[in-house]
Each structure stands twice: as C-alpha cells, then as structure tokens.
C-alpha cells in the first residue's frame, strides 16, 4: 500500500514534467468534443489522433488515448441532456431522463450532476485500477501460452455474444479481423503469408491504417451521406449549474452504485460502457422510491448511467494493461498506442515499465480533474466549440487520417490500405457487421495464433495437458458457459433493445 503511494507520487512527478500533462489535456479536450458531437464516438477519435502520438513518449501517447476515452464518456452527456442527441451509444440512457430534466428547466443541474458523477466514478475507477493492478499482475505472471490462448478466445467469443449483432455476423467480423492479421510476416516462424508476391504486403497491414480507415474514414463517409447541420445547443448559464440539495442527495447513492458496477462491466468483453449504462438504469429504477419519475427527469437516471460509463472505461483498462488483451474496442486502440511505441503491456508492465504504468495512473487522476473543469464550469464555452461546420470537420478528419496512415512507414501503400479499410468499414456499418469485433480480432490475432500454436506444441497431442492448467481450464469453461447460455443474455439484450425502442417510438413522453 505505502509502496503503491510512493509509486504514484513518482508518477505524478513524471506527469508534471510537462509532456504527459499536455497530452492528457489534448486527449480529454478532444474526447469531450467528440463525445458531445453526435455521430462521432471515442473510437474514431482515438484512431485519428494515433498519428499525433508518434511524436510523443509512450506514456503521453497512452495518456492522450485514455483521455479521449474518458473524455468521450464525460462529453456524451452534454448533447444527450441538452438536445436528446446522444454523442454515442453510451449516452443513450442518459438522454432519457437528462433531456426531461432540461425540459423541466433543470438543464444546468443535469449537466452538473453528470459531470460530478463522471468525475466521481472516473476517480473511483482509477483508484480501483491502482489498487488492483499489483495483485492482478502478480497473479497473471504465471500465465503462459494456454492461459493467453484461453483469454483471447474468451475475449472474442464473449464479445460476439454481447455485441448486439447476430452471432454469425460478429463471427464474420472476427474472422475478417483474424484473416487481415495473418497477412505478412508470421511472428513465430518468420514465414511470409498472403502477400500475393507483393513486397509491400510482407510487413503486414499497419494497425494505424486499418484502425483509422475502419473508424475514421468510414465515419467520414457515413457523415458525408447525410445533410443537415449539427443542431445548435441551447446555452446554459453558469449560475444554473448547481443542483439543489435534494437532487444532490438523490444522485449520490446512484453514483456510488454506478461507478463500481460500471467498473465490473469494464472487465467483461463487449460494449462495456453501453451495457453498464443500461444495467444501472434498470437497477436504479428497480430500487428507487421515485419509480414514477423515471423517464420524466429522475436525477438518478442521469447520475447512475454517467457514473457507470466512466467506471466502465476505467475497468476496461485492467485487461489491456495487465494482461495485454483488450476486451473492448477503445481498449484495443489503447493497445495500439502501446504497440506503435514498441511496448506490449501485460503482467510484466508494472515490473518492466514502472514509470510508464504509474505515470499513466497519475495522469488519469489529473485527466479526471481536467474533465471536471472542462465539463463543469467551462461547459458553456465548450458547447460553442461544437458548432464547427460538419464539412470542415470531415475534411480535417480525412487530412489527419492520411497523415496517420502515411507517417509510420512513409508509404503511400498504407494510404491505399486506409482507403480500402474505409470502404470496408462503411460497408460493414451498413450491413451491421460489428467493426469493433474486427479491430479487436485484428489486434489480438497475432497473440491468439502464437499462443494456440505453442499450446498445441506443448501438449503434443495429449489433451490432459490442458487439465493440468486450472486457470486456462477455468477460462475455457467460462467461455463455453457464456456460449451455451444465450437465453439469459438474450433476455438482457431484449431489455436493451426495448430501451432503444422506447426512446425512439414513444418520444418525449415515453422512457419506459
């Protein structure tokens, strides 16, 4: 414990050296912005800003990317509350009661509660990450090939069950991602595969080009098809922000439940933040004394989900930092931030890169404070930033995407890959093939193959080998259970889609 505190102190010293602080600010600022902008979520933003991280040290790079993720979870409440236009899926639930509060003249209070809930849960998540990291690492150090293979399988299959799309469609995405990952040099044997005799393919497809194309460019194409401007946000005055004592008293327990619940959801593969918001909303409604107010501006309906999605973004950092396996798409982008700097996170991260790890923890604390200020007192200045004309925004994203694809290997071939991936991402969005599953599979494909091949080689044809590895066996059994228990999860998913429908069909008076 004291050791942890000492380490974090070192981390703070490192962050205040300058660079990481600036990176964190860029991250949270952009994150808040895209979180609030309808149609653009954290994943495209993380993808498009990846190139900026080439110029940074790895701590700053990861801090910037994490800042975008946290920032988006803060920012998506703004447009949800003011206009009932969620910035991304994790803001949908907030928009139900948040916008009702706006109509009741409590917009300022709703924004303030959302910011406080996000801050409290974000801080809780960082504390939990900080305290849980050393023991989890110590445990995971024993992992070898069978455990890692079981984990990758777990990540992919559980994600497929929870992603909301059909299982077959998600598996199409997963297989596409794995297939793209096998192009080029094989990590284990050094052989070259699927290059069609072309030298440019030998090094494989670059993660940046794939990610930025799949999310950044595809998002641009989807946006370009639509007309209409980003609607103007109603302005909120600073003196309207403080919530009443009663609102505050009702919000606090929801926040205290939402943060930890969200954190736990972050540990599950899938759209963690989105699922967490639905779960806490149901829970709050179930136990509330003011059930009738849900859907009509219940403050718990803002505080709970906003706490939950921030908690989830913290929880999602655990598997990627400590096991090296992302369970969610934003976590896959974080992993990308590590990989392009030549670092693979995992059980040895804390031991081998203490400055990086503790700097990251310290940076996340600071990022949360920055976000509280950006989305609290400064929210009025901030909402005006949202009035960037959409065509200019599109063009800027295209320019950044091109730079991002070109820079890592100075190759226009990677820009061509970017374009193809943009088209693929666009088509996938139209077909409702989950792009998040593709990028996740692409990122962990290498580890999955090498751990599978090693496991089989070690087992040498003896299935009893896996039974001697209780951890791997447990993970595999859990994976099978999740696969065989679609009934329960379907029930959950149906509840989720009911929320969506309620929101769309019943209009302002609805909200279940």
């Amino acid at each position, binding site marked *: 414990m004291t050791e942890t505190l000492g380490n974090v102190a070192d981390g703070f010293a490192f962050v205040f050296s300058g660079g990481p602080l600036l990176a964190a600010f860029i991250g949270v600022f952009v994150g808040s912005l895209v979180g609030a902008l309808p149609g653009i979520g954290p994943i495209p933003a993380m993808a498009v800003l990846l*190139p*900026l991280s*080439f*110029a940074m040290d790895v701590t700053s790079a990861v801090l910037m990317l994490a800042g975008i993720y946290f920032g988006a979870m803060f920012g998506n409440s703004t447009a949800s509350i003011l206009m009932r236009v969620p910035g991304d899926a994790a803001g949908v639930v907030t928009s139900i009661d948040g916008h009702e509060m706006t109509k009741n003249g409590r917009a300022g209070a709703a924004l303030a509660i959302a910011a406080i809930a996000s801050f409290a849960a974000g801080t809780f998540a960082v504390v939990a990450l900080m305290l849980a990291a050393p023991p989890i690492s110590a445990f995971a150090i024993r992992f070898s090939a069978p455990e890692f293979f079981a984990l990758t399988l777990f990540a992919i299959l559980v994600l497929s069950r929870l992603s909301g799309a*059909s299982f*077959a*469609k998600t*598996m*199409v995405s*997963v*297989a*596409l991602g*794995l*297939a793209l990952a*096998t192009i080029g040099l*094989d990590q284990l*044997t050094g*052989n070259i*595969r*699927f290059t069609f005799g072309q030298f440019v393919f030998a090094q494989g497809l670059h993660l940046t080009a794939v990610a930025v194309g799949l999310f950044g*460019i595809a998002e*641009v*194409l989807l*946006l*370009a*098809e*639509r*007309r*209409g401007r980003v609607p103007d946000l109603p302005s909120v005055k600073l003196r309207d922000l403080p919530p009443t004592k009663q609102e505050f008293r009702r919000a606090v327990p929801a926040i205290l439940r939402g943060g930890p619940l969200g954190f736990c959801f972050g540990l599950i593969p899938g759209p963690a933040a989105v699922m967490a918001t639905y779960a806490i909303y149901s829970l709050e409604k179930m136990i509330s004394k003011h059930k009738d107010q849900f859907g009509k501006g219940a403050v718990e309906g803002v505080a709970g989900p906003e706490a939950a999605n921030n908690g989830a973004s913290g929880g999602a950092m655990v598997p990627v930092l400590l096991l090296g396996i992302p369970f969610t798409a934003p976590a896959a982008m974080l992993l990308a931030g590590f990989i392009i700097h030549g670092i693979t996170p995992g059980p040895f991260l804390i031991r081998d890169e203490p400055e990086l790890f503790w700097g990251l923890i310290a940076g996340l604390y600071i990022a949360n404070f920055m976000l509280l200020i950006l989305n609290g007192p400064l929210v009025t200045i901030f909402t005006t930033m949202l009035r960037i004309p*959409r*065509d*200019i925004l*599109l*063009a*800027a994203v*295209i*320019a*950044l995407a*091109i*730079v991002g694809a*070109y*820079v890592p290997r100075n190759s*226009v071939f990677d*820009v*061509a890959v*970017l*374009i193809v991936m*943009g*088209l693929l991402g*666009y*088509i996938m969005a*139209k*077909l409702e093939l989950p792009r998040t599953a593709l990028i996740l599979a692409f990122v962990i494909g290498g580890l999955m*193959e090498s751990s*599978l*091949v090693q496991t*089989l*080689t070690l087992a*040498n*044809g003896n299935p009893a080998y896996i039974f001697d590895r209780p951890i791997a066996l447990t993970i595999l059994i859990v994976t099978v259970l999740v696969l065989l228990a679609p009934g329960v999860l379907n029930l959950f998913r149906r509840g989720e889609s009911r929320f969506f429908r309620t929101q769309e069909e019943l209009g302002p008076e609805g909200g279940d």
Partner: protein
Amino acid sequence: MTSNQENPSPYRSSSSSQGPENDESAREDRLSEATDGRRWFRSPTLLALTVILGLGTLYLILALRLPFGSLHKPQFGFFPTLVGSVLIVSSAVAILQQLLSGNIDSDAEETDSEAEESSEEPANSRWKVTVILVAMFVYVLMADIMGHILTVALVTAVAIKVAGGRPWWQTLIYGLVIALITYLVFAWALNMPLPDGPAESLL
C-alpha cells in the same frame, strides 16, 4: 420497389398471404415475392455477404497451400486454415439467416428508409462516398510527385464540396488551410516525414 403486384409467387407458399385482401402484410409479402428471383441483386446485404464468402474461400485456398503441420505440431498454415474455415462457415450462416429471416427483399428499402430517417437525406447520395474515396486515391497516386500540401488540399477541397456544397473558392481555401496546418504541425513542429513537392520547397 418496382414490382408487379398481380404476379403470384412461384417460389414461396407463404401462410400469411392466403387471403387476397389480407391487409398490409399480405401486400408486402406479394411485393417481396415478386422480387424473389433477383434477391441477390436486390439485397445489398446478401450481395456483400456473398462477396465476403467468396473472399473467405479464396483465403482458405491460399491457406491450404501453406504447410499445415498437424495438431501435435502445427505449422504456419494451421491458424489461417482455421480462420478461413470460420470465415466461410460464419458468412454462409449469415447468408442463410438473411434468406430465412423473411424480410430480405425489403432489405434495400430498409436501409434507404433508415438513412432517410436519421438524416433527412435520400440514400442516392452514395455517389458522395465514391467521390471522396476516389479523391483520396489521388493521394496514393500523386503524393510522391505533388507533395503533401497540394494533394491534401485537393482531397479535402473535394470532400468539403461534396459534403457541404459551399462555393468552390471557399472549399479551395479551406482545403489549402487544412493542408497547410497538417503540414506545419506534423512535418515542421513534430518533425514527421511527409511527402515533398513543389509547394513544400517554397516553404
């Protein structure tokens, strides 16, 4: 959807469309049945999934040429063979599900109305997507000759024109500004190599 409503379906005996004046669902059923024969072309989803199935087959053929090894001693063709098989099976299942789901034929219409709903824009704006992609491809072909600034200015100007409909002089100025900013930030301030050309040598 263009179709002959008088034409009874030769393919399907749908239970719901037995009564001729069986309200709207029956009408829709007949509508969809008329387009049955052209399913694959009517439904972009089926078409795209079939392309994916084809790509999966190609991938598996290539994977099978690599040394597979055995379960005891897998070689570097082992994993790709698994992946190719999963790709083929899952896309085939997705196609089947699409065919069995019943509303395949209204698929194209569905995406259209969806696009309309969310954006007050008919789906025939697909040309915009094509134009932007083609413009981006100019970068691949020309960046090494024309340099970063001119090509990016061109690409972004086209994108702004397509997405926003401003006058050309405005789009060109915006394009040039974006190109200059990205060049100054990434090449000058952050020292990253971007393709050089006539505009860069002026700076």
